[in-house]
């Protein structure tokens, strides 16, 4: 009884701390309809500055779609988004970066992949060279700098994709299941890069299915079901004592597919 009360107090404190952080990106009434089907249904979400928010949910819940909507890769059918409380303009978009589940590698060397991204972001000359060297060093890809990016292993390609995104110096980093199908060592390397970026103040929004990863990385969790937010809040609270049935069922391994709970 005393333990439960103490846990509630900690959870409440975490909720208050999360709410106190100013919002970097905020979306209200986000909706996406394709072919008459409502895939994202009136989502309100608040991404706190400097926080690591993890979007979780079963397959088909709309996690990757939500990430793409937030990053502006898909235009919503309805809804409103703000950046630091103001309009989400071009400069706000350039303060964001995204890493995809299957890393997109240009048909160039590791070095040229980094150089291209930085050139697009307007970095030239020695400043660019220095940023590339730093990115290669952090991602431990220095020895592979001259290798074609497409011959790297899956883990190395994902490290390069993450290094490329971070080299652009984003304020907000979107990650769509960056460790899916990677071995534990590669997963650890990616998580270490994410944690390092977070320590430097980068806000992270990440889609993941991995509960262990959520426990290791997430500050906040947004749990989706059928294109709606079933539950959101500090990770410590959502993971330990979920309030929604969907999140509870999923955490207990009873929610296999979107909206389908196991019998019994």
């Amino acid at each position: 009884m005393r333990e439960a009360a103490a846990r509630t107090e900690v959870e409440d404190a975490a909720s208050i701390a999360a709410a106190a952080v100013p919002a970097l990106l905020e979306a209200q009434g986000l909706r996406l309809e394709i072919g008459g089907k409502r895939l994202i249904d009136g989502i309100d979400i608040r991404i706190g500055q400097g926080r690591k928010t993890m979007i979780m949910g079963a397959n088909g819940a709309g996690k990757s779609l939500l990430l793409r909507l937030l990053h502006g890769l898909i235009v919503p059918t309805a809804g409103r988004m703000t950046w630091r409380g103001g309009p989400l303009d071009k400069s706000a978009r350039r303060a964001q970066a995204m890493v995809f589940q299957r890393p997109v590698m240009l048909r160039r060397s590791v070095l040229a992949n980094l150089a291209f991204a930085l050139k697009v972001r307007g970095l030239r000359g020695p400043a660019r060279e220095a940023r590339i060297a730093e990115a290669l060093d952090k991602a431990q890809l220095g020895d592979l700098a001259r290798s074609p990016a497409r011959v790297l292993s899956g883990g190395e390609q994902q490290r390069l994709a993450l290094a490329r995104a971070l080299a652009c110096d984003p304020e907000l980093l979107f990650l769509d299941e960056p460790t899916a199908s990677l071995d534990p060592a590669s997963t650890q390397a990616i998580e270490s890069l994410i944690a390092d970026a977070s320590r430097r103040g980068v806000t992270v929004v990440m889609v993941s299915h991995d509960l262990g990863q959520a426990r290791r990385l997430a500050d906040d969790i947004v749990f989706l079901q059928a294109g709606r937010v079933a539950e959101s809040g500090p990770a410590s609270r959502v993971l330990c004592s979920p309030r929604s049935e969907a999140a509870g069922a999923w955490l207990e391994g009873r929610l296999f597919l979107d909206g389908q709970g196991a019998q019994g």
Partner: protein
Amino acid sequence: MQTFASVLGDAVALILSGDADLMEIIALSLRVTITAVIAACLIGLPLGAVVGAFRFPGRTLATVLLNSLMGLPPVVVGLVVYLALSASGPLGPLGLLYTPTAMVIAQTILVTPIVAALTRQVIEDLDREYSEQFRSLGVGPLTRIGALLWDARYSLLTVALAGFGRAVAEVGAVIIVGGNINHVTRVMTTTIALETSKGNLELALALGVVLLVIAVLVNAAVMGLRASAARAAYA
């Protein structure tokens, strides 16, 4: 009646002798063809890339048009270029009719749709792969086209090769606008047609052999380059 073997033997001897007329014809053929392919690539590559990478009203129509123009009848192109360059035509004052330049223009018109249509397909496929990453990075339209063309460079070599094949084997259009004038506009294909009609089969066959050898060498070079690029995962 000469046997095929004896004619072929005479043709090979003619090639090996380094006959000046033969060399002049081969050189002009290559000059006209390569110039036309370069011009067609300069127009067709960016045109195909724009149609392949961007969504705009009329894009489907542009695609249908490019694909249809791949099968342009050479004699019709020859006739149109002839009318444009003839003394009474809009470009008559330039005095280009019956010059190698007229032949380059005709070949460029024939090859450009081939290069553009094939480029569109290559770039559309690559853009499908790169699209989200480019939008995430905030890549502008010019950089996007440049990056797509550069990353598809090995596939586009095959596209240029298809254009080269069409241009080097072309007869109908170049004979109309070039006139097949000895030492001025006589190229391999027009010479083969002329010498065959005259019964001078050695020269015709010698040129045929050279045409085949050029086609095989160019194909082999491009395929070799593509294979090594694929091994290095750049293709």
